[in-house]
């Protein structure tokens, strides 16, 4: 069983693509350890015969016709772009 002391905030922040300052890392380490200690009470519950519920009211097989329809123009889709040119999003270099 996982232990609250297993949490390594600096490592998880890397997974989450989220830079943290040293101060934030220390603070979150303490605060989230408290949350995990509080949540350890979930171990008391016998869940051996319980199916996990992802949704309270399951809705299955929601299909629609695969038909084209009007949606955003390129101009609308780009209207909030932090950096754009020639009707394209400009992104940070991915490959050398």
């Amino acid at each position, binding site marked *: 069983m996982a232990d609250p002391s297993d949490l390594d905030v600096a490592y998880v922040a890397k997974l989450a693509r989220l830079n943290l300052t040293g101060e934030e890392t220390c603070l979150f380490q303490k605060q989230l350890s408290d949350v995990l200690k509080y949540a350890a009470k979930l171990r008391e519950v016998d869940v051996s015969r319980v199916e996990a519920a992802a949704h309270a009211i399951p*809705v299955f097989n929601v299909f629609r016709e695969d038909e084209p329809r009007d949606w955003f123009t390129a101009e609308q889709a780009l209207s909030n772009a932090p950096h754009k040119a020639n009707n394209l999003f400009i992104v940070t270099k991915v490959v050398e």
Partner: protein
Amino acid sequence: MSRPALPALNIADLQSLLRRREVSPREVLDALQARIEDIDPKVEAYLSIDFEAAAREAEKVDVDLPLGGVPIAIKDIINVEGQPCTCASKILRNYRAPYDATVIRKLRAAGAIPFGKTNMDEFAMGSSTENSRVKLTRNPWDLSRVPGGSSGGSAAAVAADAAFGGLGTDTGGSIRQPAALSGIVGVKPTYGRVSRFGVVAFASSLDQVGPLTKTVRDAALIMTAIAGHDPQDSTSLNEPVPDYVAMLNSNGNLKGVRLGLPKEYMVEGIDPQVKAAVDAAVKQLQSLGAEIIDVSLPHTDYGIAVYYFLATAEASANLARFDGVRYGHRAENPKDLLDHYGRTRDEGFGAEVKRRIILGTYVLSSGYYDAYYLRAQKVRELIRQDFAKAFEKADAIVSPTSPVPAFKLGERTADPLQMYLADIFTNTGNLAGICGISVLCGFAKSASRTDSSRGEIDNKQLPIGLQLLGKALDEARILQIAHAYEQSTDWHKARPPLAKIEN
């Protein structure tokens, strides 16, 4: 004959003036604008307002529609075309919505005018609106206290007569809790009752949009307008929408209604004044004919833990889209892609959002998924079964909405766990996917020393909320019960001292 100033009216009364052509939508809008300019510098409920666009709509709106000519305040997490939609976050500071959310499209079709965007906890993560990265919203009943959250801006605006009604979102109590703390009505619909299309996602299996209003009738009016199936939200339920207003029982009789009182809800830490007010409300419901029965929700105590694992897990996935590529803030001059992501998100998100992304990423990560996320999903199923069993005996469940009245600004910000416990009575309703309403049921007296040097005691009245939880898709029933209760009391006529309007 004199009538109350326009902003003091509820939606139903405003609508009848509009329909009789005694006032025009433009006059309503102008009166509301004057009120907001007068009161909002103190309450700070709004993040952005576009009176010009609203005035253009007011000129052509059909006042005979169900909400014809009624301006509605919108939580800044719901897309309104052409308006900012910041989620009170720096990462969306310059974002403008290129389209209307389905709830906005439906409000417009009913004649309502979405004119302004209200403050909230950043990305709806919080219970006090203090996690807004833009401004602090204050409780109109006591400006040194929080309005609740995360829909605190909409709640404070309605309570201060700076809005006729508002929309909020409720993921763990974010409509009902601020409604309770601000002394108004708030409804969390059944999961899937209202479309989430165009609403910025926090926890997709829990989020629902709902109304914040001055009366239960007004909540029923807005519910009738916004509920219903939406092909653009695959989780929305394809069930007919009743006319919730027509279904309100006007004679106020609750004979034959069975109300469940869960023994687990009288927990330690509940404020004695809250307990007293809720006990009195239960007696009042009994005197209207309701039968009170004991029910048990044995997994209640696990609700907060389950909620914070599932809500943060879903949030960590949903907020991955804020990568500084297609919209939102982007860090300057990144040296590579990881630097671009890491700094963009560090600069864009505030502390609570970061904390939840970390917790959510952790509970989904390899080696911990089964112990935290999967176990929480299983306990969620047990919570859902608790409610299913309780609803075999009871038509609705009664409880306090919040264990405490409005707390002081800054009082709980240092301890996230304490803040999370504010949702103890509300978030199991989201986990089970059922519907709930909060209605004003009394006041707590706060005797806080405002000026210690002179020893003055400042007596403020702080609203207390009564929560009614109903079965999935049984909104009509909880609205009926809440309406009967409200009409048998004078609580809903009380206005915060700040909000009193001189005629």
